[in-house]
C-alpha cells in the first residue's frame, strides 16, 4: 500500500481517460460532443474504434455532433446495484440515438424518470463529475501501472436535456 499522496475518493466510477476513450471525454470537457467519422466512407462511429468497422480504414477525424437526438430506450434503476449510485435512485439510464446515427449511453438530467418516453427529442449538455484521477475506477488504472494524467480541466460527461 504505497502512499501516493493522492486522495482517492470513493466517488462515482469515472472513465479512465486513456487512449481514444480519453480523447472522447476531452472533447466533452471542451463542450463539443464529438464522434469519430471515417474519412473514407464517411460513417460515424461510437464507441471509439481504431479502424472503421465498415471499410477498415485507418483514416478518421473527430467531428462535432449536432448534439441532437431522440431517446431510443432506457431503464430506471429503482434499487442501487452499485454503492456509488445508491443516493440517486430512482434514476434512468438512457440510450440516445443521435442525428448522426450513432447511439450514446447517457442520462436525461431534466426529466423525472417516470416521465421519460422513447422517441423524446433531447439535446446534449455537459456534466462535470470531477477532476481526473479521483474516480473509483482509477484504482484499476493505478494497478495497471498507469496513474493517468491529471493536468486537464476535469472529467465531463455528455448528458441530455429535453429539447
Amino acid at each position: 500500500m504505497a502512499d501516493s499522496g493522492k486522495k482517492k475518493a470513493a466517488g462515482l466510477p469515472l472513465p479512465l481517460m486513456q487512449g481514444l476513450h480519453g480523447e472522447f471525454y476531452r472533447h466533452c470537457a471542451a463542450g463539443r460532443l464529438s464522434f469519430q467519422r471515417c474519412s473514407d466512407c464517411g460513417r460515424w462511429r461510437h464507441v471509439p474504434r481504431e479502424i472503421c468497422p465498415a471499410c477498415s480504414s485507418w483514416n478518421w477525424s473527430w467531428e462535432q455532433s449536432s448534439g441532437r437526438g431522440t431517446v431510443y430506450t432506457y431503464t430506471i434503476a429503482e434499487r442501487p446495484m452499485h454503492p456509488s449510485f445508491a443516493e440517486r435512485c430512482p434514476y434512468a439510464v438512457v440510450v440516445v440515438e443521435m442525428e448522426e446515427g450513432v447511439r450514446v449511453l447517457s442520462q436525461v438530467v431534466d426529466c423525472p424518470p417516470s416521465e421519460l418516453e422513447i422517441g423524446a427529442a433531447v439535446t446534449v449538455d455537459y456534466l462535470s463529475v470531477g477532476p481526473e484521477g479521483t474516480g473509483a475506477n482509477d484504482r484499476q488504472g493505478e494497478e495497471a501501472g498507469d496513474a493517468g494524467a491529471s493536468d486537464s480541466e476535469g472529467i465531463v460527461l455528455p448528458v441530455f436535456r429535453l429539447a
Partner: protein
Amino acid sequence: MKDKACIVGVGATGFCRGEGSGKSLHGLQLEAALTALADAGLRAGQVDGIMPFPNLGTAEGFAASLGCENLRFATTVNMGGAAPVASLGVAAAAVTSGLADYVLMPAGWNGYSGSRAGAIVQEMTASIPGGAIARDFYLPHGLVAPPQWYALIARRHMHEYGTTAEQLGAVALAMRKHAQLNPAAVMHDKSMTMEQYLASPMITDPYRLFDCCLETDGAAACVVTTTERARDLARPPVYISGVASAQPYPADEITGREDIFRTGLTVAAPRAFEMAGVEPADADFAQVYDCFTFEVVQQLEEAGFCTRGEGGAFVEGGRIELGGELPVNTHGGLLSEAHVLGMGHVVEAARQLRGEAAGRQVADAGLGVVTGWGDFGDGSIAVLRN
C-alpha cells in the same frame, strides 16, 4: 458432428441460500464433477479434457484435485452464461477429433453466500469482453449491472412490439410452477401468483424482483465423450445432434447495435437446427437461459420458436408450461430452481431425455433444446436427443 458426441454423465450439488453451501468455490464444483462422473460410470482419472466456466476455476486446478494425470484438452469458452452450452459444441468437436476422450465441464459458484451480484459488478466489468467500454461509457452514467443492460433491450421490445409486464410475468410464473414439481429447486413450496409477481418491487424498470434470477449457491457438471465410447458407459447417452454458438455484433458494446434484438442466438440457432436436421417445432421442450424473464421471450423469438415480436404472446396461456406446446425450463430455471450459470439447464435437458425427471417429466421426450445467454448477448444452443 451430428450425433457423434454425447452427454454421458450429469450431476449437481444441492442448491441453497441462507447459510450457504459451506464449501469453497472449488469444492462445490468438485462435488458436482464427481457426481457427474459417477453418473457416467467413469473414474475421475479417465478425464483428459476439462472446460471450466470463465473466471470460476482452472482446468489445471480441477485436474490436480481429481487426479487427472493425462489432461490434454483444457480450454474455456469466454461467453458468460452462454459458456456451458457453447462448451458442449467445443467438447463435441474435441472428442470427435481425438483431442480428448472424456471432457468434463464443471460450473458453479457460491452466488448467494460468496460473491453477491452487487459486490462483483466491478470485478465482472473487468472480466467481460467489453469491460473497458462498460467502465468508461456505462458505469459513469450508472449502468452497472446485467439486469440494466438487458432491461434496455426489454424496454425497446415493449415499445416496438407491445410486450407487456403480464407477459414477462407469465415467464416467471411458468418457471415457478415447474419449481413446485422439483424438490431440489430453491423455490419449491413457494408458489407465486400474477398479483404477487406484479406487486414485487421494481429493480430496474421494466424488471421487477421476480423478473430476476435467483442468487444461490450450487454447482452442476456434465461429461461429454464420443458416441462410440458412450455405448460402454453406465447411462443412456444423450446425443448432441446440433450445437452452435455465436456473438452479437458488436459483442463488446450493447447499445449501438443496428438491430438491438439480434443476439448471438440469432446467428447460432439456424446453424444448430440445420446440423440436427430438425425444426424448432420438433422440440419436446426447451431449457432457455433465464437470467431475466424477457431474455426467455427474446430467445424464443431468436431461436425461431416464434417470429420476432410474437414472443410475448407465445409465453402466455400456459404454452411454455408442462403440458403446454413447448414446456420451458422444466426444472424451474435460474428464476426458480437455482442460478447454476446455465449448466443446470444442460443437466435438466439430459434428465428429461433420459426419462428421469419424475413428477416434471415431459411425456415421451425425445428431442430437446437448451440455450445459453451471456455477457452482452452472446448466444449458444444445443439440440439434444435420446
